[in-house]
């Protein structure tokens, strides 16, 4: 993974000093809250329902065990002993004192981390496929490009006061695990006819109150033009994006209102002019960054592992874990392991300090010291020997982290909702917890198979409900929470915005409604191989709507 050099260290320490000065000026009254708010947001400090919240950047979701241990230490020393992994591969602490933030940032800087641009109307933490560098279907590793974009966008002098926040995601695989088409810029690595690397460029995706799937504005962007092209997109957006209404200020609205062709033309014109000015990506610099992401020293192993196969035969619990939480690796004899942060009845994405340390230990011992955070709010050990899978399973189980539910009905994405968030209109975590309790039976979960439930506690859609196979949006009406269901959404390469099926449900009835949808699917699927999304696409919403509302009519 990327390691800081003297320059990077100086940069982060200067940023800590700058923020310490800003906090000091706020606490002394020199800055008003109105003046301070954009400054604290630019460094990931929100004021939530109960306290300040600090969002820490985990660039493209990659962590070392040393970094994860430091996060655990911060959780213990400055928070309440846990943290929340988010749908943007970041970590949030919920109970932070503003006066402590500069010291926390020092601790982060000591392990080459920061909270820069985790909020504010700027280029946010760049996300990438959480299986990067390991996935069997990968064309090229997206992390070097994500790192290049991270550096280029850090405290960018021109793009710090954009009309609205700006999110970039990169994937290197045809199967999109990074949801690039729901981002402001989505980049997919590809090769042209000559074998040269480049990107398919998508612009203008996003969720929130106006969900839109991104438009493809370039079939092939040579890799050396990456920064110049992104600069062109950002400059057109900075100058032309709407600033009169914060709900219409994202780039998706600009793309929509100017029209795809006119927008592309504006970007290409700016790009043509910029190309002469600088910012190409020289091969030596690309190579320098890519060196940090060289594959770890994999052993030459046979594809099949006898230890693994014996354990599968001997231990049904392990077999179930392996069937869901172990994924194909590009190197023979290795697997990718999903560490589920979705225990039945627990808040999705939360990990205690002790659990973070346990994962750090396991990664150090079994997984080349690497951990990933997925946008699905789980952790990932990207490189584990198949021979070691039984031992990893045992160690995870001891830490309460071996829930065998990756990609299943209880692997729910949920925003913090009204239990924490100042913007929320309804609670989302308790709904996730009750759904996972309803479907706790593992045989039933495995019978239902692949399905993604995503829950947001307000229209801002941090829980990605628009792209949930089953999406749940929590709203408020006359002081009561109620929940709207959308069906058929998907965040992968077949990106689709889910459709609202009908009137919302009370908090009491929402879990029954989800169960009705799933029972309808089970009754109508052609075979267990037809997963929920495929069945929904075949059947349409009618049978689901009927099942949900027939009783009421």
């Amino acid at each position: 993974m990327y390691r800081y050099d003297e320059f990077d260290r100086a940069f982060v320490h200067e940023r800590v000093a700058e923020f310490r000065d800003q906090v000091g000026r706020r606490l002394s009254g020199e800055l008003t809250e109105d003046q301070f708010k954009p400054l604290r947001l630019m460094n990931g400090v929100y004021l939530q329902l109960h306290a300040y919240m600090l969002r820490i950047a985990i660039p493209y979701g990659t962590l070392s065990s040393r970094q994860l241990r430091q996060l655990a230490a911060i959780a213990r020393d400055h928070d309440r002993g846990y943290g929340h992994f988010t749908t943007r591969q970041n970590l949030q602490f919920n109970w932070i004192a503003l006066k402590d933030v500069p010291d926390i940032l020092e601790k982060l800087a000591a392990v080459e981390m920061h909270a820069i641009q985790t909020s504010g109307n700027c280029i946010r933490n760049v996300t990438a496929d959480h299986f990067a560098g390991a996935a069997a279907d990968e064309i090229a590793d997206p992390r070097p490009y994500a790192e290049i974009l991270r550096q280029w966008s850090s405290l960018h002098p021109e793009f710090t006061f954009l009309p609205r926040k700006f999110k970039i995601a990169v994937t290197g695989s045809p199967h999109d695990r990074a949801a690039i088409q729901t981002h402001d810029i989505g980049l997919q690595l590809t090769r042209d006819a000559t074998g040269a690397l480049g990107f398919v460029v998508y612009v203008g995706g996003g969720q929130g109150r106006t969900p839109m799937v991104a438009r493809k504005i370039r079939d092939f962007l040579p890799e050396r033009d990456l920064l110049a092209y992104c600069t062109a997109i950002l400059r057109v957006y900075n100058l032309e994006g709407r600033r009169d209404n914060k709900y219409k200020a994202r780039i998706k609205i600009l793309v929509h209102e100017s029209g795809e062709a006119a927008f592309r033309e504006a970007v290409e014109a700016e790009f043509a002019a910029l190309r002469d000015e600088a910012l190409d990506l020289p091969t030596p610099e690309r190579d320098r960054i890519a060196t940090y992401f060289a594959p770890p020293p994999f052993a030459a192993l046979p594809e099949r592992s006898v230890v693994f196969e014996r354990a599968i035969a001997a231990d049904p619990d392990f077999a179930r874990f392996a069937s869901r939480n172990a994924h194909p690796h590009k190197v023979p004899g290795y697997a990718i392991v999903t560490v589920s942060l979705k225990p039945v009845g627990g808040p999705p994405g939360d990990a205690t300090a002790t659990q973070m340390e346990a994962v750090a230990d396991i990664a150090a011992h079994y997984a080349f010291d690497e951990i990933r955070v997925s946008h699905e709010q789980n952790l990932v050990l990207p490189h584990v020997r198949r021979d070691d899978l039984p031992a990893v399973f045992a160690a995870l189980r001891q830490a309460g982290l071996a829930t065998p539910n990756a990609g299943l009905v209880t692997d729910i994405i949920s925003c913090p909702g009204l239990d924490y968030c100042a913007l929320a209109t309804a609670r989302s975590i308790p709904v996730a917890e009750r759904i996972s309790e309803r479907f706790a039976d593992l045989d039933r979960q495995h019978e239902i198979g692949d399905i993604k439930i995503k829950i947001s506690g307000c229209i801002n859609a941090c829980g990605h409900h628009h792209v949930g196979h089953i999406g749940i949006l929590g709203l408020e009406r006359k002081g009561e929470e109620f929940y709207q269901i959308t069906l058929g959404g998907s965040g992968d390469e077949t990106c689709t915005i889910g459709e609202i099926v009908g009137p919302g449900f009370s908090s009491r009835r929402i879990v029954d409604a989800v169960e009705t949808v799933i029972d309808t699917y089970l009754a109508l699927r052609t075979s267990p191989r037809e997963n929920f999304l495929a069945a929904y696409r075949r059947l349409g919403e009618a049978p689901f709507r009927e099942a949900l509302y027939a009783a009421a009519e």
Partner: protein
Amino acid sequence: MPLYRSGAFVTDDWTFLTDDTPLPATGAVGVSRTRFLAERDALLGRTDPVGVMLTAGDTLAGIVPDLPRLALIALRFPKYGDGRPYSLARLLRERHGYRGELRAIGDVLHDQIPLMRRCGFDAFEVSHPSTVAALRDQRVVAVRHHYQPASAEASEIRPESHPWRRVSAPHL
């Protein structure tokens, strides 16, 4: 209004005219883009320097050919969250080679000035008292290491073998 230019507070030697104020016979004057386009010949015909004021949302249309004849361009930040003048500044400096004074006016605060400088601003009208004090006492704590080239190339060091890295001077 206090004017900070080249590391010090200086007396403002410019007069900014509203569109209906008669043009004085002498002295450096700044006018709106609209007035500049309407009275271009009269303005450029004077001996003393001419400048143009633009605000966020304006374009550079019509003034680019005359940039070599303009001694000042003032870009207004209607509020400091409005980032459009940063792009306009870079276009002026990098695309159109504008070399005159580039002045930030409007809502100009402490924490934006380092970014403005990197985008090519070299003069700042500052009304916020603690920003004035911070600049006067050289107390602006800013990040000096940068990951991207910008418009302040002349005053920034480029570390060897890193195409985009820059280091700026310790004081603004």
